[in-house]
């Protein structure tokens, strides 16, 4: 029961290879095309930060709703959330790339741009950095507390720890909604400083949970197939995973459409330019692909629960979703920063590098605790779950 996962040296070496590749590409990128490299750094960091925070959000949801089905997988999201440490470091590094990423951060832009001058009490570099540090401090603090309670629970069985974690989870959900809205608006939305969408933060929150589930599914099947853990995973767990994808696909599609419909209907030039850029070439294929990959296909495929809970369906949907997430962020970041579509070596290489870091952190911290949270009150319910 309390066996641990061993992070084998071959796996370590492979992931280190990915990280090395990413590092080389990043250095090459900074020499040949710094603007694009900064944009990619932001994109990939936000991509994996979303997954980490979404995983933490998932754990908190299980505690607050006192649901037991996912307790067996609890160490997965827990280990995923450790990427926040790296994300914080890279986000602070972004300070040096701000003039190339954000129009409002260019020195002297307030002199000739009235709108940005109007927004400057909020959108200025010192306050931006303060917000950045504060949100990361909150996430790191909550992550450390939740992990500590979780490890403590392994040593001593007590219901008090469960209740404490539940209270922390409530605080986390509240703080996550506020802080992640701030983060998404600050780092992504202000790239197009003249445009704003009030639903932007909510979209980022739903996306974080949506894609974190996809990563959890892939990791669970990978660990089961390669290392033989999570043998207790049965049709009931697959069913719940597929329901998560189905329902979050509805939420995602709803929010996407709400954002689009209001802007389309009101037809204010300031707001529509954002979409006019994206529905016209070269971005238009990605614009439609984003919606198809993130809503249409998952919604139609997982609608039938008998079909949606098949292993191959779950895995292929998760992979599609991760591609969809990349396209979503690519469309949010790239038109405003580099302005032209050149998907190439830098984009692929940096994504691979970041994926390597994410997985390296995941496996490191996954191997540090017992695979099952042995003393969790809902563990038995989770392991013997029937449909």
């Amino acid at each position, binding site marked *: 029961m309390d066996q641990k996962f061993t992070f084998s040296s071959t796996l370590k070496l492979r992931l280190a290879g990915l990280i090395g590749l990413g590092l080389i590409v990043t250095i090459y990128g900074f020499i040949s095309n710094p603007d694009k490299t900064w944009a990619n750094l932001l994109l990939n960091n936000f991509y994996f930060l979303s997954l980490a925070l979404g995983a933490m959000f998932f754990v908190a949801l299980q505690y607050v709703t006192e649901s037991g089905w996912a307790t067996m997988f609890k160490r997965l999201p827990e280990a995923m959330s450790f990427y926040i440490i790296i994300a914080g470091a890279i986000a602070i590094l972004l300070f040096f790339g701000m003039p190339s990423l954000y129009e409002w951060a260019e020195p002297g832009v307030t002199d000739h741009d009235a709108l940005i001058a109007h927004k400057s009490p909020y959108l200025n570099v010192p306050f931006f950095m303060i917000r950045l540090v504060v949100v990361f401090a909150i996430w790191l603090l909550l992550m450390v507390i939740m992990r500590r309670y979780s490890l403590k629970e392994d040593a001593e069985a007590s219901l008090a720890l469960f209740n404490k974690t539940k209270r922390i989870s409530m605080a986390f959900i509240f703080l996550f909604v506020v802080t992640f809205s701030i983060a998404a608006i600050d780092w992504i939305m202000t790239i197009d400083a003249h445009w704003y969408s009030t639903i932007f933060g909510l979209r980022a929150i739903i996306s974080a949970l949506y894609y974190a589930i996809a990563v959890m599914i892939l990791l669970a099947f990978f660990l089961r197939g390669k290392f033989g853990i999570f043998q207790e995973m049965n049709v009931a767990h697959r069913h719940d995973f597929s329901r998560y994808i189905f329902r979050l696909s509805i939420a995602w599609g709803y929010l996407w*459409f709400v954002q*689009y*419909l209001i802007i*389309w*209907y009101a*037809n204010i030039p300031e707001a529509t330019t954002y979409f006019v850029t994206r529905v016209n070439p070269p971005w238009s294929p990605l614009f439609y692909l984003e919606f198809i990959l993130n809503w249409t296909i998952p919604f139609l495929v997982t*609608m039938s629960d008998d079909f949606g809970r098949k292993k191959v369906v779950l895995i292929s949907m998760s992979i599609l979703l991760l591609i969809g997430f990349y396209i979503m962020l690519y469309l949010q970041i790239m038109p405003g920063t580099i302005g032209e579509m050149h998907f190439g070596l830098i984009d692929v290489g940096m994504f691979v590098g970041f994926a390597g870091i994410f997985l390296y952190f995941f496996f490191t911290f996954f191997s540090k605790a017992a695979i099952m949270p042995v003393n969790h009150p809902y563990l038995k319910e989770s392991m013997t779950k029937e*449909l």
Partner: protein
Amino acid sequence: MKTPNIIGIFDNDDQVVEAIHTLKSKNIKIADVHAPFASHHILKDLGKESRIPYGSVLAGAFAIVATFSFIYWTSVINYPIVFGGKPNFSFPAWVVVIYLMTILLTFIGTVIIFQMRTKMNFGKKAELMHIDSTEDKFVMIIEQDADITEKEVQNIKKMLSDHGAIEVRMDN
């Protein structure tokens, strides 16, 4: 003359599920179980998985097509009038209407399909095997074949009470 059914009345669903397993392993056909609430276990073990979701999907697909055609006919073909400078065929604005109409028509359609399949029309008098099945009791109904022997009937009755049936009787 119709042979009377064997009726077992149970207190909780776990006992019903166990009784179903035992009876099924002895190849005894259970006609139905009346329960105060929907239970997936009972439905699954009886082999009576509902096909109503497929009916709902059909109703929903019909609703999408019907609503789209109706709006298209009104605002593009029959009465093309320009609102706020939008084109006549302005699909994004229709999505909301189609979405809400899909919910409404799916619901109505599902109810109609359900009533047609179960032959439960409005004003139909309830056929209750036991009045408590509307409150807190589970009623299991086993239809007798014409050639069933008295010994087998006694056997079934014994099995039901072994599994915790609080009452076993014969009834039409």
